[in-house]
C-alpha cells in the first residue's frame, strides 16, 4: 500500500489528465487535484498546428476526453488556476491568489513555454502556437494575411508552414539550420522536407537567421534576415523551441536544469514526480537524462508515474522507446527510437522517388532509430530492429 490519500497534479494537458486517469484505473480512490492554468477543459496539442489552425476541426474536436469521462474520474479539477509554488516539505502546492492544495504527493506536468525572440517581443502580428488560444488568434490573423514568415523549421514550424500554405497565404520559412528538421531527423530527411515545402510553393530560406524586424509603429511588417535580405510579411510566426515550464518551482529545492530532473522512476524528490515535456529523467537504456517533447511519451510516462506512485518500493524504471511523428501536406513522417546527432542514415525499404520509404539511423553499425515516410504499417514492423538493438 502506498498510504497516499491526496495527490496533486499540476498541468491539465495530456500528461496530467492521463496521470489522473491511470491512478483511478489502478484503484486509487483518494483525492486527485488536477490544476491547470488554462481555462479550457483538457485538450490535445498535436491538432493545434494542423486541424485547428486550418479550421478543418472546430476546437472542441481537440478535447482529450468527453465531459462525462472526465466527470467519472471524480477529480478536484481546477482549470483556470495557476500554481505558483511547491513546498515539498509541507506537501503543499501554492496557487495564484494565495490558496494552497494539500497533498501527500505531487505530479508536475506543466509542459513547455515557447521560446520567443526578444527583438520581436511586444510587436503586433507576431504569433506562437502552444495553446488553443494562441492557435485561434493565429488562425484569425492568417485569414486576413497575404504573406507571412515562419521562423523555426523544426516539427512545429514546418507543420505551421504547411498548414498556412494550404490556407492560401505565401509563406517564407526561415531557420539557421542547413535544412528543415535537421536536428530531429538529419540532413537526408531534411533535404526531402525542404523539397516538399518548395514543391508546395514555400520560400525555404535555410542557413539564415533574423537580423531585425521591419516595424510600422508597433506592428510587424517583415523581417531583415542575416544575409541582408528584406522579407515583407503581414505576420510572423515563431517556432524556435521551448523551455520547460519550471519557473514556478524555483525555491522548492528541486534540480531544474533543463526541466525537472528525476531519477529512473521519474521521481524528482520523495513524493514529487514529473511527467511529459517538463520531465528530465534518467533513461536507463539511453544511458543518461533525457527530456522528450512528444505526445505519446506524455501519456506513456503518465501511466508509469501513476504505477510508481502507488507501487511504493516496487517502483520500476521508465525506459520507453520514443515515438515521434509529424504530418505535413500529404506526408506523414514517423520515427521510433532515439536518433543521435551524428547517426548515419540508410534506406531499408522503398525510396523517396516512390513517395514512401523506411530508413534507419545507425550508430556504429547499430540501429538506434527507424523513420518512415508515408509508411506507417511498415514502420511498425521495423520498430523491432530498434528494440532488438536496444536489448542486445
Amino acid at each position, binding site marked *: 500500500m502506498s498510504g497516499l490519500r491526496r495527490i496533486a497534479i499540476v498541468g491539465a494537458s495530456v500528461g496530467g489528465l*492521463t496521470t489522473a*486517469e*491511470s491512478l483511478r*484505473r489502478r484503484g486509487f480512490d483518494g483525492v486527485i487535484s488536477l490544476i491547470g492554468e488554462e481555462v479550457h477543459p483538457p485538450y*490535445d496539442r*498535436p491538432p493545434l498546428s494542423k486541424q485547428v489552425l486550418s479550421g478543418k476541426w472546430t476546437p472542441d*474536436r481537440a*478535447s*482529450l*476526453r*468527453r465531459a*462525462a*469521462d472526465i466527470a467519472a474520474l471524480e477529480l478536484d479539477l481546477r482549470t483556470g488556476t495557476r500554481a505558483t509554488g511547491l513546498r515539498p516539505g509541507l506537501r503543499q502546492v501554492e496557487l495564484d491568489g494565495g490558496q494552497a492544495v494539500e497533498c501527500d504527493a505531487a505530479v508536475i506536468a506543466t509542459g513547455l513555454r515557447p521560446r520567443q525572440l526578444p527583438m520581436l517581443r511586444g510587436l503586433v502580428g507576431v504569433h506562437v502556437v502552444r495553446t488553443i488560444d494562441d492557435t485561434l488568434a493565429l488562425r484569425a490573423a492568417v485569414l486576413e494575411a497575404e504573406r507571412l514568415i515562419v521562423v523555426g523549421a523544426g516539427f512545429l514550424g514546418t507543420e505551421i508552414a504547411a498548414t498556412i500554405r494550404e490556407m492560401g497565404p505565401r509563406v517564407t520559412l526561415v531557420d539557421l539550420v542547413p535544412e528543415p528538421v535537421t536536428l530531429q531527423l538529419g540532413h537526408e530527411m531534411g533535404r526531402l522536407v525542404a523539397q516538399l515545402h518548395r514543391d508546395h510553393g514555400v520560400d525555404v530560406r535555410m542557413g539564415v537567421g533574423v537580423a531585425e524586424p521591419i516595424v510600422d509603429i508597433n506592428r510587424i511588417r517583415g523581417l531583415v534576415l542575416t544575409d541582408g535580405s528584406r522579407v515583407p510579411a503581414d505576420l510572423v510566426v515563431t517556432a524556435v523551441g521551448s523551455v520547460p515550464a519550471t519557473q514556478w518551482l524555483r525555491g522548492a529545492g528541486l534540480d531544474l536544469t533543463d526541466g525537472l530532473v528525476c531519477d529512473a522512476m521519474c521521481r524528482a524528490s520523495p513524493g514529487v514526480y514529473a511527467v511529459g515535456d517538463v520531465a528530465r529523467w534518467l533513461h536507463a537504456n539511453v544511458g543518461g537524462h533525457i527530456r522528450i517533447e512528444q*505526445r*505519446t511519451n506524455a*501519456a*506513456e510516462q*503518465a*501511466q508509469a508515474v501513476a504505477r510508481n506512485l502507488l507501487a511504493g518500493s516496487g517502483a520500476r524504471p521508465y525506459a520507453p522507446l520514443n*515515438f515521434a*511523428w509529424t*504530418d505535413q501536406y500529404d506526408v*506523414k513522417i*514517423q520515427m521510433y527510437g532515439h536518433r543521435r546527432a551524428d547517426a548515419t542514415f540508410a534506406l531499408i525499404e522503398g525510396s523517396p522517388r516512390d513517395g514512401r520509404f523506411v530508413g534507419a539511423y545507425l550508430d556504429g553499425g547499430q540501429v538506434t532509430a527507424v523513420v518512415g515516410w508515408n*509508411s*506507417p*504499417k511498415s*514502420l*511498425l514492423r521495423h520498430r523491432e530492429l530498434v528494440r532488438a538493438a536496444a536489448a542486445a
Partner: protein
Amino acid sequence: MRIEIDEDKCTMAGQCVLAAPNVFDQRDDGVVAVLDAEPPESERTAVEDAIIRCPAVAIWLAAE
C-alpha cells in the same frame, strides 16, 4: 465492452496495435482496423492501454 473509433482522427501511430494486438490492427494505409469490436473482458486492460496511448484520441468505449 464495445469499442468505437474515429477513423478521421486516427493518426496511424500504431500505438493501439502495440497495446492490444488481439483487438487492433492497421489497414494497409495505416489507419486503425478493429479486429474485434466487442472483445472479451480478458482484453480490457489491453484495450484501456490502447485508448490511453492513442495519440489522436481516436478510440473509446461506448457508454454502457
